[in-house]
């Protein structure tokens, strides 16, 4: 029940992110979630897109280092305590979160959050057991 995330290495220089979004635009690739992590010298752009394989090939072609990672697309209630519930489930199971960021899209009154955890299979199990809905790439595309 994983979602394929694309990560791109960028030097921390003006115009770099733009070069990447240009590539995506050229191939009509839709971004449904994006986050940028940065240090003083470099950054990592992480994205969920509608055509991940095409995106990887196109970004590679543009000579940026790119990799894919399995992440969890977790549905939470968009009200106080919604995110807290999902985190409690993971905390109780002793699973650490490496990073998370949220989707641009939502599903009705539900918010979608992307989780990168140290053990995605185990996290899937405990979240589903606790009644938390997880999305696939296809489900996200159809929203």
């Amino acid at each position, binding site marked *: 029940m994983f979602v394929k*995330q694309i990560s791109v*290495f*960028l030097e921390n220089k003006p115009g770099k992110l733009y070069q990447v979004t240009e590539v995506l635009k050229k191939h009509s690739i839709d971004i449904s979630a994006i986050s940028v992590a940065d240090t003083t010298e470099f950054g*990592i752009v992480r994205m969920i897109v509608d055509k991940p394989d095409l995106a990887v090939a196109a970004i590679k072609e543009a*000579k940026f*280092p*790119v990799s894919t990672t399995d992440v969890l697309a977790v549905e939470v209630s968009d009200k106080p305590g919604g995110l807290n519930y999902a985190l409690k489930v993971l905390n109780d199971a002793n699973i650490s979160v490496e990073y998370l960021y949220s989707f641009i899209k939502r599903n009705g009154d539900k918010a979608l959050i992307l989780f*990168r955890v140290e053990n995605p299979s185990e996290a899937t199990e405990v979240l589903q057991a606790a009644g938390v809905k997880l999305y696939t790439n296809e489900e996200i595309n159809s929203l």
Partner: protein
Amino acid sequence: MHWNKIRECMDRHELRSYQLEKLKETIDRVYHNVPSYRQKMQERGIIPEDINSLDDLKLLPFTTKQDLRDNYPYNMFATPLQEIIRIHASSGTTGKPTVVGYTRRDIANWAELMARCLAMAGGHQDSVVQIAYGYGLFTGGLGFHYGAEKIGAVVIPTSGGNTRRQIMLMRDLGTEILACTPSYALCIIEGLEAMGIKTEELKLKAGIFGAEPWSENMRAELEEKLNIKALDIYGLSEVIGPGVACECLEQQGLHIFEDFFIPEIIDPVTEEPLPEGEEGELVITTIDKEGLPVIRYRTRDITSLTYEPCACGRTHARISKLLGRTDDMLIIRGVNVFPSQIESALMAVGEAEPHYLIIVDRVNNLDTMEVWIEVSEKLFADEIRKLEQIRKQIESEIYTTLGINVKVKLVEPHTIERSEGKAKRVIDKRKI
């Protein structure tokens, strides 16, 4: 395999008497034919008859690149121009190039030396040899060319550049021995990957890489990626060009062809000769050269010398794999640093590609050194923590090797300029 077993495996006692005879001839010739040598010897009160043993070599004055520049272009030639049939020149980074001349016999001898080097790498008359060193004033291309023709190999004179065509010919023509700079060999590896050509499609057996210093770790990388034996070759145009010394398949140092050259190792500062095994500057005297003989030429290359017998059967002394040149040596906060040591440290970490650039600067009167490393697919991790970890690991590896703190910067692939000849590894921004 030996090209000239009689000469290459000569008894050392015999070799020494042969050297003395040739040395005396050379000294006599330069004294009478080259005014600047005569003048220098006269200043020291030496005449050719004073040279009666190989030990007397150290009575003679050194020759430097500056002497060749001062006598630009022809004044150090020991033969009239009518006997010169070829000119080569080394790149003049500071002003005029250094011009060297060869007689017909010199060219034949050079081919003999290069034939020995190619035979060391397993070359013979059926071998397909691709020469991707630059052809022209640079000695690399033509030096290899004549040697490869002498052994009767199938010679492909691709010269440098146009990597895709190089690779296509390498595959289609079944190249077995590749000759180029080690940094160009890396370009070829990248090209193979980009073109989706696997090493199994190639017939490569050996590579003879030279014209710049390279590390043991680089050797491991080249051998693995190209599935070859990677051998180091040494030479410099002032002495003859490539073929002064070359590694045999034992890979335990480069045999310096002592029937043509007498090597010495000196302390570059005190200029005193150093004992066997000690690291210092290589000094070479040519004893069988007509056009431009050099006496005690200061190569500026740092190495050591051993006379221990080699398992290959050759009796000629070996120099250790070159560490670098005194000119390339950076002094960072008083520590001597060679780019090849940085390369070693990088490759020890394993994840890093051997494309790197060293940037030296001075901030608030303190030397700083930054090493740029390209982030390859292999190195790239989705987590900043992991990237930082790799960066720190490289920094600490360099600290372990050199004892100085450097800053490692991760840059995007292809940021660092690729070289088709000698790689540019250092940018020194210090204004001293």
